[in-house]
Structure formats: structure tokens, C-alpha cells
């Protein structure tokens, strides 16, 4: 048989000659979108574990202690996956955006220098906390968890400061050849967009983390595991989310106003405003048609103008997409992506706020969490929804900035690599991450089942084969019957650290 060598070569040439820019964008979007799911867990789960830990030590509450201990074991896995996927991102700055890094690394990199320090501290104290359960005394051990909470927040603030700088580039001057001549590190880090974006991300971390963890326990409670252990896990996590939800609405509103004032084209894409005018409606759903007009959707008259600046109300003028030349605004497809993502984020945010309100009202009236099936079902769904909202919010920030990588200073296509092989690394990365994501979920699930079976989990047993004393080893095919009430442990020795 004769191989169609010519055709194969032509096909290979066609694939490898593709424009690397869309592939670079896709790869960055995919890897960042994956990593960003682990961020809220890294930032907020430690705080929730510490709440449980505090309760456990202070009131000698064994359920709370067990909760804290198990959460810290899950955290160990998600933290490791977050650390390696975060490393991939720092590789990708060079692999995908070498021209961006060559031009702006000396400004863009400044916040990352501090992020590096915070990440160092976080990695150190995560290890001490997780491995300290059986070795440190209760209160010192509790305090080794506190730096994790602080460094998680400070680290994400640092990373977001770098992203905020891309939206509001300040703190540098250029020489005659267009290279950076001077850098003012304080203004780079504390750029105009940073306070709003950082607050939005940190609160999102607590909102998303709280919903994610609460959804697992709500789901278990729906399936009948309503013992104290599950109720406690649910209450701690969802209380965190319920506090974060209203704060997030306020912070998000502030950020949107900042965008209105400082990134008008992004704002026009968010609100679907083709032409500059006053009395701009807030369009729910809908899209920008090929002729540049808004199609479909549900317009609420004047609301976008009013929200942008309540002091001038419906007279507030909102700049439209037409305020800049076509090649300096997002494409129609990008506008529609941004607007849809915005609707998803705000819509889910509103639902979460209602859910938090429901929870708060029942607490005020009855002094306990609502236990109805409808409420639990809603909380079960809130984890995935909150992640969706966070991804959507990130799409609004990143796609809304198009075509700029550094707002009004550098275009994405001028920043990307010229390496035509990016399509191949994109395919490889997607496959690798699919395996990684699936495995992470399976491992977490296997851990949870093992915890439920009350097989004592030891972190220092032999990696292969049976452990010396047989503890912590469950045959692969063992299907121990689940305790009717779940969770609660009959075996006191196996559960408590002390």
C-alpha cells in the first residue's frame, strides 16, 4: 500500500502553519480556568478548617476536630494540584507570551515577587499544619494554620495585582526605543484597578469555597446522612458563603463602576451598548447582531445608566462600542461572550444572595439552619454554580479587555509567541489536565469513602504494599456497609488526633 505521503505532508504543513495566537489564548484560558477552580479552595478552605479546629479545641468537640482534620487532608491534595498547575502558568508566561514578558516583565513581575514570598510561607505552613496533627499540641497546632489563611489572601491579592495592572497599566516610563526606562514598584502593585479586583477575587474565593464545601455536605444530607458531623460541616461552610455573598454584591458593583469610568469599551461590551448615549437599558441576555444592533434579550429601560452613576440617574451617558475604532474593541463574538458571561455571573450571584438571605432569615427566626429538601437541593447546586460564576467573571475581565493584553498599550497578537507548534502543546495540555482533573476528583472521592468507612488514614504508612501493622490498609474490593447515619465514628482511637 502506498501511503499518501504528499497529502499527509500537506495536512501537517496546514496544521503547523496555523496562527499561534488563538492557540496561545486557548491554552492560557484553559490552564488558568482550571487553576482558578483550585484557588478558592486554597484560600478559603484553610479558614473553614480553622473555624472547625477552633471549635474542636475550645469546646472539646470531637466532630469539629474530625472535620478539621479531614478537611486538611483534602486540602493537601487540592493544594498540591494547585501548586503544580500554578507552576504551569508561570511556565506559560514564557512559553506563550515571550514578547509580553520581554517588554513588560520588569513591571508585571513586581507583584509576583511578593506572591513568591507568600506562596513560600503558604507551602511551609500547609505542610506544618497537615503534618502537625499528631505531633503538635492543640493550640500551637491551631496557630500554625493561621499563616495559611493570611498568605492565601495576600498571595491571591498579589497575583490579582498583576492582572489589575494589565487593566490599568501605571508606574513605568518608556525610553525613546519604547522599552521600559523606569519602574515605580509601589504604583505598579497598587494600580487603580487593584483594590477592586483584589477584593472581588478574595471575596469570590470565600464565596466559591464556602459553596463548594457546603454543597458536598448538603448533598450528603439529602441522601440521609444528617448526623451532627455533616450538619456541622454544612453549617460552617455555608455560613462563610452566606457572609461573603452580600459583600460580593457590593464589591462587584464597585468594580463595575470602576470599569465604567476607566475601561469604557469593556463596560460597553458588558452592558451591550453599541452606541454612546444616555438612558441606556440593562439588557438581560440578548446579543449583538452582525449589523451592530442589539438583538433579543429583555431590556430594562435606563437601568444601565442609572447603575453606572445613580447621582445622574438615567441621564448618565454610557460610552458605546462605537467610541473607538473597530480594531480597538472586542469583536462581535467577543462582545457576546463577555455579555453572556456577565449575565451568568450576576445571575448566579443574585441566586446565591437569595440563598444566603433564606439561610440568614431562618437563622434569625429559628436559631438554626434551614433543613428543607428544597433548600438543601439548592445548596447542593450552589457549588457548581459558584464555580461557573467565578469562571464567567474571569471571562468578563479577560475577554472584555480584548484586543489588548495591556489595556490600550499592547495588543494580544503583539505579545504572543510566534511558535507555530502551540496547537500541539494545547492538545497535550488539554489531555493532561483532563486526566489530572478526573484523577483529582476520584482521589478526593476515594478519600471521602475511606473516611466514611472509618479506615484509619495514616499519612506515613508504606507507599506500596501492606503497611507494617495493617492499619490504614483496606482491600481494594472491600465494600464495607455504610453506617446508617454515616460519619459518626464508633472507633474512638481511629478518629481523633489526641
Amino acid at each position, binding site marked *: 500500500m502506498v501511503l499518501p505521503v504528499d497529502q499527509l505532508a500537506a495536512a501537517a504543513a496546514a496544521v503547523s502553519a496555523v496562527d499561534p495566537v488563538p492557540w496561545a489564548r486557548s491554552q492560557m484560558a484553559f490552564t488558568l480556568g482550571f487553576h482558578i477552580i483550585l484557588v478558592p479552595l486554597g484560600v478559603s478552605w484553610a479558614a473553614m478548617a480553622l473555624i472547625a479546629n477552633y471549635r474542636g479545641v475550645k469546646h472539646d468537640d470531637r466532630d469539629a476536630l474530625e472535620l478539621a482534620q479531614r478537611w486538611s*487532608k483534602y486540602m*493537601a*491534595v487540592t*493544594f*498540591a*494540584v494547585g*501548586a503544580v498547575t500554578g*507552576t*504551569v502558568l*508561570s*511556565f506559560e*508566561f*514564557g*512559553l506563550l507570551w*515571550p*514578547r509580553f*514578558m*520581554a517588554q513588560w*516583565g*520588569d513591571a508585571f*513581575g*513586581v507583584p509576583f*515577587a*511578593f*506572591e*513568591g*514570598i507568600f*506562596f*513560600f*510561607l503558604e*507551602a*511551609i505552613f500547609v*505542610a*506544618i499544619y497537615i*503534618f502537625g496533627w*499528631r505531633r*503538635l499540641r492543640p493550640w500551637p497546632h491551631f496557630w500554625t494554620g493561621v*499563616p495559611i489563611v493570611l498568605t492565601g489572601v495576600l498571595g491571591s491579592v498579589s497575583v490579582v495585582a498583576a492582572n489589575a495592572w494589565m487593566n490599568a497599566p501605571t508606574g*513605568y516610563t518608556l525610553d525613546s526605543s519604547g522599552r*521600559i526606562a*523606569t*519602574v*515605580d*514598584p509601589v504604583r505598579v502593585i497598587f494600580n487603580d484597578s487593584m483594590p477592586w479586583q483584589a477584593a472581588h477575587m478574595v471575596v469570590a474565593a470565600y464565596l466559591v469555597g464556602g459553596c463548594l464545601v457546603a454543597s458536598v455536605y448538603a448533598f450528603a444530607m439529602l441522601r440521609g446522612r444528617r448526623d451532627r458531623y455533616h450538619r456541622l460541616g454544612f453549617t460552617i461552610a455555608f455560613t462563610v458563603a452566606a457572609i461573603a455573598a452580600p459583600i460580593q454584591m457590593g464589591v462587584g458593583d464597585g468594580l463595575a463602576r470602576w470599569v465604567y469610568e476607566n475601561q469604557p469599551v469593556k463596560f460597553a461590551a458588558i452592558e451591550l451598548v453599541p452606541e454612546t448615549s444616555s438612558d441606556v437599558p440593562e439588557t438581560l441576555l440578548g446579543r449583538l447582531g452582525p449589523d451592530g444592533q442589539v438583538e433579543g434579550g429583555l431590556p430594562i429601560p435606563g437601568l444601565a445608566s442609572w447603575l453606572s452613576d445613580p447621582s445622574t440617574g438615567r441621564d448618565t451617558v454610557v460610552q458605546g462600542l462605537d467610541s473607538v475604532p473597530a480594531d480597538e474593541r472586542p469583536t462581535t463574538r467577543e462582545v457576546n461572550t463577555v455579555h453572556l458571561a456577565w449575565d451568568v455571573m450576576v445571575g448566579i450571584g443574585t441566586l446565591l444572595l437569595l440563598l444566603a438571605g433564606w439561610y440568614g432569615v431562618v437563622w434569625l427566626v429559628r436559631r438554626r439552619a434551614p433543613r428543607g429538601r428544597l433548600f438543601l437541593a439548592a445548596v447542593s447546586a450552589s457549588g457548581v454554580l459558584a464555580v461557573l460564576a467565578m469562571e464567567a467573571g474571569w471571562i468578563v475581565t479577560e475577554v472584555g479587555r480584548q484586543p489588548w493584553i495591556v489595556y490600550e498599550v499592547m495588543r494580544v497578537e503583539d505579545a504572543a509567541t*510566534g*511558535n507555530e507548534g502551540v496547537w500541539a*502543546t494545547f492538545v*497535550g495540555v488539554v489531555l*493532561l489536565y483532563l486526566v489530572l482533573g478526573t*484523577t483529582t476528583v476520584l482521589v478526593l472521592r476515594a*478519600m471521602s469513602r475511606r473516611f466514611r468507612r472509618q479506615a484509619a488514614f*495514616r*499519612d506515613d504508612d*508504606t*507507599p*506500596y*504494599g501492606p503497611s507494617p501493622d495493617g492499619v*490504614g490498609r483496606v482491600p*481494594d474490593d472491600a465494600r464495607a456497609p455504610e453506617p446508617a447515619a454515616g460519619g459518626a465514628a464508633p472507633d474512638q*482511637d481511629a478518629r481523633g488526633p489526641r
Partner: protein
Amino acid sequence: MSTAVAVVLLLALAAYAAFGGADFGAGFWDLTAGGAERGAAPRAVVERSIGPVWEANHVWLIFVLVVTWTAFPEAYAAIWLTMFVPLTIAAVGIVLRGASFAFRKAVVGTGVRRVFGGAFALSSVLVPFCLGAVAGGIAAGEVPAGGRAGDPVTSWLNPVSIAVGVLAVALAAYLAAVYLVRDARHGDDPAMVGYFRRRAVAAAVVAGVVAAVGLVVVDRDAHPVFEELVTTALPLVVAGTLCAVGALLLLLRDATRGARVLAVLAVTGVIAAWGVAQWPDLLPGALTVADAAAPDGTLTALVAAVGLGLLLVAPSFVLLYVLAQRRLLPEEGVEP
């Protein structure tokens, strides 16, 4: 100022080699420990030894990357443009390694553990080789400046790169074995003490041979760097060699505490000698440290971050290591 940051970068690289390198080396011994039954004991030592510390050690790499792109953005871009193949492989290896090590700990079934363990151990060899090959390619002048990419294959698959890559794997294995001797001793496991001591001696000999061969290769293919190695950097080369020989003698005499210190000094000597031999070039033949450096404001911020790091990270690191060591004492932390 750029010199100060270059020194910081070199020290961070040395720290990554001494801490992260030893973790890679532990993966090498995990890989070569044999089947599930036979390898159980050495793997247990490996697991206990690096479990609490590998993530903190891994951060040195991130720190090196951040300092490079912030302080020397043009050099950073040039290195990644040329070296995208080995760096992509290294990135994949880092993902597989970190994730599978964490997963291996969290799962129970022997079969699954073996898969994760294999991925962890294989990538523990792959990553240091690739990073070493990148360093070798830089030293051999394979990375051009000015936004052009060098050859995507020969830039890291040339004699110097391969020699440095193999040397990186050998040094990592050597360091790890020296550490593991001590960890096995803390675990009160005389069989494992002997096991890793034999391997430490063997790895020391292999690393010495690879280093000697590497010098010949560097003389042939990266002559300017070799010139400096035998002149300006000679004191460092000699000091590193003396430390290596001293560590070997102490290992043979079973004085592992001193051997550990000397082994770290020997590896630091290799990296310091490389830095001095390349000075003042960052990319030999293409870009000097001074020309690549970012403006003063950035460098000042970096030095401030490093100062903050010394204040906060150093004591925390010591705390982690002290706790990690203490937890191996059998009378402590044993479950009832």
C-alpha cells in the same frame, strides 16, 4: 544592583538544587527501589523524608522563574523562545510528579499506588534532566538574544546540555541518598541506613565521573566558559571538589551529619562556579547581566521582596525542617 540580583538568582538556584534537587533524587531512588515488596522499605523512607517538605522546596523554582522574568525580562523571553521543548517537558513532568506524589499518599490500593508512584518517580528523573539541559544550552551559547529563537532541538540536545542534564540527575540522586541515610537513621532503621549509604557512595562516584566528562565536553563545546572555570572560577571548582571528596570520605566512615553539609556545599560549588564562569554574561555571547537588567525601581522591589523573604521565610523554613526531623523520632507522634 543588577549584580546583587544576579547573586540572589544564583543563591536561589543553589537552594533549589540543594532542597528541590534532593526531592528529585528521592524520586530517583523511589524509581530504582524495585517491586512493591522489595521496594517497600526504601519507599517508606522516601515518603517520610520528602512528604512534608517537597512543596516548600518546589517554590524555589517558582522564585527563580519570577526573579528571572522580573529582573531580566529580555533574557527570560529569549530562554523560553529557544528552550520551549525541554521546558514544556519539564512542566508536564512537574504536574505529573507533584500530583501523583500527593495522590499516591491519598489512595490505598497497591495497583493505583504503583501507577502514581511510577509517574512520580519517572518525572523525578525527567525534570532535572530537562532543567539541566536548559542550563547547559545556555552555557553553550545556544540562546540568542533579540527576540530570535535558537534551534528548538540542538539547543538542548547538544553534548554540553546532555552532560549537564545527566549531571543534574546524578547530583540530585547523590544529595538525596546522603539525606536519606540520615532520615533512615532518625527512623531507627539500620538496614536502610546501609542501603542508602551504599547508594550515596555509588552516586558520588557516578556524579564525579559525569562531572569530569562534563568538563571535557565543556572545554570542547563551550570553550569560553571552560576558560573561566579553570581561571576565575578555579577556587570554587577546587573548593567544590574538596567538599565532594570530603563528603565521600565521611560517608565511607559513616559520619553522615558532616557528609550532608559537605554534599550541599559541593553542589553549591558547582552552581557558583557556573555562575562565576559565565559572568558577566547572562546568555553567553548574546546578553550581559547588566544589559539584561530591569530598571532600578524593579530591582529595588525585588531586593525588598527578598529581604521580606529572609525575615519571614527563613525562620518558617527552619521550623518546618526542625518539625520534619523531629517527627521521625519514634517516641514522638506515634499513634496510640
